[in-house]
């Protein structure tokens, strides 16, 4: 590549597991300042895509590049300072204090005794996620939402004070959170993008994807089947094809759309009476 700019780019990445392809020729480019939403059925390849983009899995064919350079050749530490992942599960059965969990993030930048500089970054991250008051608590005693926020604070400590040029990949971050916590989590994703980071969020709630993302991709059976503005990628006809449900776009107020999803076997007489923009077939 001749052009060197900040981007994370997968080119036709394919991953095979146990004789079948769980990611098939997926190409995607993540750019600074935008939140990309990833939708698709369970097993569509969203987690695998995140794994490939963070060098957790090397693609069997195709390649992944960070700033035009093969991700596989990046030194582990340099990569860790640029790309952070919030995995679906973070089990921790040990009585570790919240501060110590957040401070784990510093290990991508400094290994050795904890310095005040590390503590300041951890404090800022915890403050931003409203978990600073929990710093002395024992991690396993936190609620699901609190644990999630602590993990995000850990990731922010990993990337350091300046997140511009960094890539943050959230793997279904709002599963298990209540509605208010879901909003708060996605606000964090937005704020990271506003500070210059590039954010990929896999989401099951397509309406949240419509509201909180700048761009959306739709995945099915290992393929990226749509990539574009949330409105076009998550258009009702795309959703009907991928999820095999009925989808309508309702206009709640001028310019504010909401996806209404129905089981595909319901007949037309049971359709809701919301003002409809019409079915897209």
């Amino acid at each position, binding site marked *: 590549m001749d052009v060197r700019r900040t981007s994370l780019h997968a080119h036709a990445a394919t991953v095979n597991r146990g004789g079948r392809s769980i990611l098939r020729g997926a190409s995607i480019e993540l750019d600074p300042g935008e939140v990309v939403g990833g939708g698709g059925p369970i097993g569509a390849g969203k987690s695998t895509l995140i*794994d490939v983009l*963070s*060098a*957790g899995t090397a693609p069997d064919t195709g390649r992944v590049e960070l700033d035009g350079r093969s991700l596989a050749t990046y030194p*582990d*530490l*340099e*990569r*860790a*300072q640029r*790309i*952070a*992942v919030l*995995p679906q*599960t*973070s*089990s*921790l*059965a*040990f*009585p*570790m*204090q919240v*501060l*110590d*969990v957040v401070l*784990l*993030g510093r*290990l*991508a930048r400094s*290994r050795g005794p*904890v310095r*005040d500089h590390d*503590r*300041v970054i951890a*404090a*800022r991250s915890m*403050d*931003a*996620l409203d978990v*600073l008051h929990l710093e002395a608590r024992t991690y*396993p005693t936190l609620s699901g939402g609190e644990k999630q926020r602590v993990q995000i604070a850990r990731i922010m400590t*990993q990337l350091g004070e300046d997140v511009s040029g960094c890539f943050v990949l959230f793997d279904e971050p709002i599963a298990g959170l209540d509605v208010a916590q879901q909003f708060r989590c996605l*606000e*964090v994703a937005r*704020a990271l993008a*506003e*500070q210059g980071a590039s954010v990929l969020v896999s989401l099951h709630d397509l309406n949240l994807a419509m509201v909180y993302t700048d761009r959306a991709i739709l995945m099915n059976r290992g393929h990226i089947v749509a990539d574009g503005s949330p409105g076009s990628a998550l258009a009702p006809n795309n959703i009907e094809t991928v999820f095999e449900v009925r989808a309508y776009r309702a206009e709640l107020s001028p310019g504010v759309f909401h996806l209404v999803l129905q089981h595909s076997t319901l007949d037309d007489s049971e359709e809701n009476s919301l003002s409809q923009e019409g079915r897209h077939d």
Partner: protein
Amino acid sequence: MNKSPSAALDRSLPELLETWRVRARRNSLLLVTTGVFALLCTLLALRFGAMAIDTAAVLSSLVKSIGLDVGSATTLEYEVITAIRGPRVARGFLVGASLSLAGAAMQGMFRIPLADPGLIGVSAGAGAGAAAMIILFDVAALALLGPLAWLGVSIAAFAGGLGATALVYAIGTVGGQSRIAIMLLAGIALSSVVGAFTGFLVFLADDAQLRTLTFWTLGSVGDASWSMVAVAAIGLGLSVSLLYPCRYALNVWLLGERQVHQLGFSVRRTRRLLIAGAALAVSLAVAVAGVVSFVGLVIPHIARLLVGSDHERLFPATLLLGGGLLVLADLVARTIAAPAEMPLSVITALIGGPFFLFLIVRNRASWM
């Protein structure tokens, strides 16, 4: 989330940092305390026994042994300290330190606060290796070989322990996350297979071999020689040099393998170091003292209560506490019914078993 750091945070930051610095200093101080504790246990164990030797004589004997002739120790006292009690205490300390260190490493590696080399079949694997060496190659011949024989038994134990650790890890880890139930069940299965193998060896053994084997499986640190101590010390040293570099990665490891990779550590390298280091420590302890149960489970828990879960402090704290407490347990074993000696495992199991039950009852909601 605020785009700029909040003003309220900036005001409270200096105070917060001071609180955190004080907390870190307190943890370091507690680590020093475990060192002092280990030293006191050692002195106590050297002082008491079949023959009472006062503290001044113990100290002067120790000084004399490194070539400085000061103080009041008689020749007899000097001989008892350097030839009988010294190696015994050193062996006990090394066995306790190795088992505890291995316990801490395995609990972290398997992400199970319940893990113990004995429970997941690693001690049994190391035991079978050592038993095979003792019986197939005949004790009498081993006795002639002296220090070399201990090296042979240790290597055989290491082979058994390493195989068991790697196997249990491979079975009990699914997608980078540990499955507690699977791991413990695999440990039970492994222990019974290995038990059958050891049983077969017993069937092959003659009377003299059987006696050696029986005493050895009950665990003992009596009849120590300095050559045995040297083997144990080298083993512990090697194990520490494998495990201590993993201290940061192991902290992240508690969250899952994926997180280890994401923070820029090599998962494969860390895994290899942890398995080899933990297996080495267990195997050496088993080779030198037989199977001493529950030490690897209990000591890391006590250490965690004192200095927290950070392995940078947990490793040294566990090592020092484990050494000190085993020396103390051995002191009880040899003085409680003197001149007879109680097997060491009777004492460690009597304390460790109920402690294990207590842990299960307290945590049964959150585990499994």
